[in-house]
């Protein structure tokens, strides 16, 4: 069926572009995976050559992190299945679960992770040929564990984000987790410009503790299973494999538990429980003062955002990465988002979470897209309302990033702060302008209740990534040469000149949006309303 759908989509130029974009994206991430795989392969060969197979854990942990954490933070690029359409067929639960696991298995994280593990298998097997079958078995089980775990996590996130009550609870847990990490982990703690020195003994104790902990976690178990087989301890190797299998079964069980509820016909809608029905009441008036179509669109967009756990998740998830990586250091020097460029890097990264908002701002309309064609409101007012909400979200995101970074690494240098703001005045209108164009020319239907990536998202995703990279590159291209030549004071004015251009571009595209959308009216309705 999927092959047939793929072939049918080639009938249209849009379909061809979409497949081309998928090939490019898959190819790009495959190359990244290949690079990682080759690197890890050499690492595995080196480790295996020196009979230190226990150190394979140092390679398996990054694979695990990439496989699990990257999709969570870049949810818009993950393909997850909404298989409820199959429930009307006489499908047994096993088949349903298998569909869920296999559908979209070739997503970015699986691709990169799978190639990385293949590299490790080849590297270690070349150095230790007699262990090939055992290593293959262990890594195959590790692969299965990662696939099931990813699927399990997303299925539960879908569930938790679908309803307001659990969304609120999740939000509170998220907040306490962030605060808890800050309070409990001294290794991440930096306050202002005073760096707390960590003694060698403390580091050693920490490393021993970490090693003991990782030995009972899947990457450590996989490495130990291989190492124990190599050192002639089959029982220990078997036990490690068994416990890895238990983790796999555990992930599968949690996934099956979630899927069984879907299989029984669970509804993830926002309908209140019957007991919650009260006597007839009037709903509250509008969120904002004033009237008019622009205000109405702003209110509607805010309501949609607050009622979509998926959109909120995409908005908040990058902040987790900003938080986690904003306190790192190596040899006393800040890494990641830490340091003087923490703010621009953190802001640029947080843009990734706003991709769906900006570059597919009509995706959630569904059948409601027809209303914009039926009503006498010029479409530029609709786009303006949506863009106002996007700007509001940008500002909130900026405040949160500043707050996180200020708390963890201290206030940024005033010059960097000013340059970042000037870059934002250039970047935001530029992204809104291109985002409006893409939303009209490359829309795809968004499921507001599930983290599923709908058909048509690859092309939009590819172009949006390129635009984001370009916008960031422009800022870097202005900043780096001027800083290196001691003329950093020119960066802000140049960015402001570029900002004037991007604002003009945005206004121009707004004024042309009615003409653009009229030309694509049928395609938009077919894509957003009729597409399954």
């Amino acid at each position, binding site marked *: 069926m999927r092959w047939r759908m793929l072939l049918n989509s080639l009938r249209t130029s849009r379909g061809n572009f979409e497949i081309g974009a998928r090939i490019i994206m898959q190819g790009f991430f495959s190359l990244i995976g290949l690079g990682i795989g080759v690197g890890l392969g050499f690492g595995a060969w080196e480790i295996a050559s020196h009979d230190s197979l226990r150190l394979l854990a140092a390679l398996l942990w990054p694979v695990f992190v990439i496989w699990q954490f990257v999709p969570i933070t870049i949810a818009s690029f993950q393909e997850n299945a909404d298989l409820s359409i199959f429930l009307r067929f006489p499908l047994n639960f096993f088949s349903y679960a298998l569909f869920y696991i296999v559908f979209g298995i070739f997503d970015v994280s699986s691709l990169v992770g799978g190639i990385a593990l293949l590299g490790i298998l080849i590297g270690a097997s070349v150095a230790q040929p007699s262990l090939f079958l055992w290593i293959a078995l262990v890594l195959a089980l590790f692969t299965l564990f990662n696939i099931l775990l990813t699927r399990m996590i997303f299925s539960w996130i879908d569930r938790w984000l679908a309803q307001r009550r659990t969304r609120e609870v999740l939000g509170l847990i998220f907040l306490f987790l962030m605060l808890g990490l800050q309070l409990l982990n001294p290794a991440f703690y930096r306050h202002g410009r005073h760096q707390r020195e960590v003694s060698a003994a403390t580091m050693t104790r920490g490393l021993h503790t970490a090693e003991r902990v990782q030995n009972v976690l899947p990457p450590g178990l996989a490495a130990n299973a291989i190492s124990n087989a190599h050192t002639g301890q089959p029982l220990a190797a078997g036990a490690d494999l068994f416990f890895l299998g238990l983790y796999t079964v555990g992930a599968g069980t949690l996934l099956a538990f979630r899927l069984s509820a879907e299989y029984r016909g669970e509804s993830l809608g926002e309908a209140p429980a019957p007991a919650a029905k009260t006597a007839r009441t009037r709903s509250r008036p509008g969120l904002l003062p004033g*009237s008019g179509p622009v205000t109405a669109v702003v209110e509607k967009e805010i309501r949609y955002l607050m009622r979509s756990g998926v959109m909120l998740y995409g908005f908040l998830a990058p902040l987790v990465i900003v938080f986690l990586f904003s306190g790192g250091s190596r040899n006393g020097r800040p890494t990641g988002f830490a340091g003087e460029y923490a703010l621009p890097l953190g802001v640029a990264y947080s843009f990734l979470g706003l991709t769906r908002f900006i570059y597919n701002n009509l995706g959630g309309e569904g059948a409601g897209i027809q209303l914009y064609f039926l009503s*006498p409101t010029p479409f530029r007012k609709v786009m303006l309302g949506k863009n106002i909400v996007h700007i509001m979200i940008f500002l909130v995101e900026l405040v949160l990033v500043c707050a996180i970074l200020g708390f963890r690494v201290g206030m940024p240098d005033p010059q960097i702060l000013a340059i970042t703001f000037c870059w934002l005045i250039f970047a935001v209108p530029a992204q809104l302008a291109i985002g409006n164009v893409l939303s009209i020319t490359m829309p795809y239907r968004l499921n507001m209740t599930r983290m599923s990536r709908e058909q048509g998202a690859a092309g939009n995703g590819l172009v949006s990534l390129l635009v984001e990279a370009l916008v960031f590159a422009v800022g870097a291209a202005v900043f780096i040469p001027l800083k290196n030549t001691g003329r950093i004071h020119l960066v802000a004015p140049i960015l402001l000149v570029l900002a004037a251009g991007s604002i003009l571009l945005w206004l121009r595209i707004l004024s042309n949006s009615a003409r653009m959308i009229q030309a694509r009216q049928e395609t938009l309705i077919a894509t957003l309303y009729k597409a399954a």
Partner: protein
Amino acid sequence: MTTPAIATQRLTRRFGSFTAVDDVSLQVAPGQFFGFLGPNGAGKSTTIKMLTGLLEPTSGSIEILGRPFSAAALDLKRQIGVVPEGMALLSRLTASEYLRFVGSMYGLDRETANRRTEELLDFMQLANEPKKLIADFSHGMQKKLALAAAVIHGPKVLFLDEPFEGVDAIAAGTLKSMLQGMIHRGATIFLTSHVLEIVERLCSHVAIIHKGKLVANGSLEELRAGVASTLPGAEREEKLTLEEIFLNTVGAEGAEAVPELSWLA
């Protein structure tokens, strides 16, 4: 001569080599309740989409209230209301939020939109669950809401694409009562439907489209007389129902030998 509320002249729409609507010319007088009928795939929805600006005609012209109509005719759009195929609802809003949103999109000030929203919700009996999202509405509730949204701005011309499809008798009664009230106050209603009994009860004039072409157009009496004249003597005396008129007009061409499905229980 009264200016027609709706007039089309040689309206045509092609999709590639396929002609969905072929040279359709019709007029709907102001205050008429006009039924537009046809078998599945005849071109009804395509016609109504062109009349409401959701689809651009390949050729031909449309006039609404005596003025040329196109998707860019924003002033005219203020005077028409539409319940399109798919209903154009925003599923993540409540009924009142959606109606107020539509009111604003049609240029109503906030106070008027709020007042009419409450009145419409009461009329449609949708006010009892103010926090329920449209996504969780039954089909009938969604239809009622879509109709409420189509009339909130007090249009002079109303286009309804299958308004009674999937609607129970109680909800259909509410819709009928509202539509008849609008006709009494001078509105014009253009309706497509497969529920011929309702069309026969409500509509004064009917057009039938088949394979993209207009095959019948006139008052119910005119259509009865036209079909009756083709019937044998005895049958001519009986008053034909709209279903019989419809089947006589399109049924002979559409009837094909249907194979027997012997495996069906």
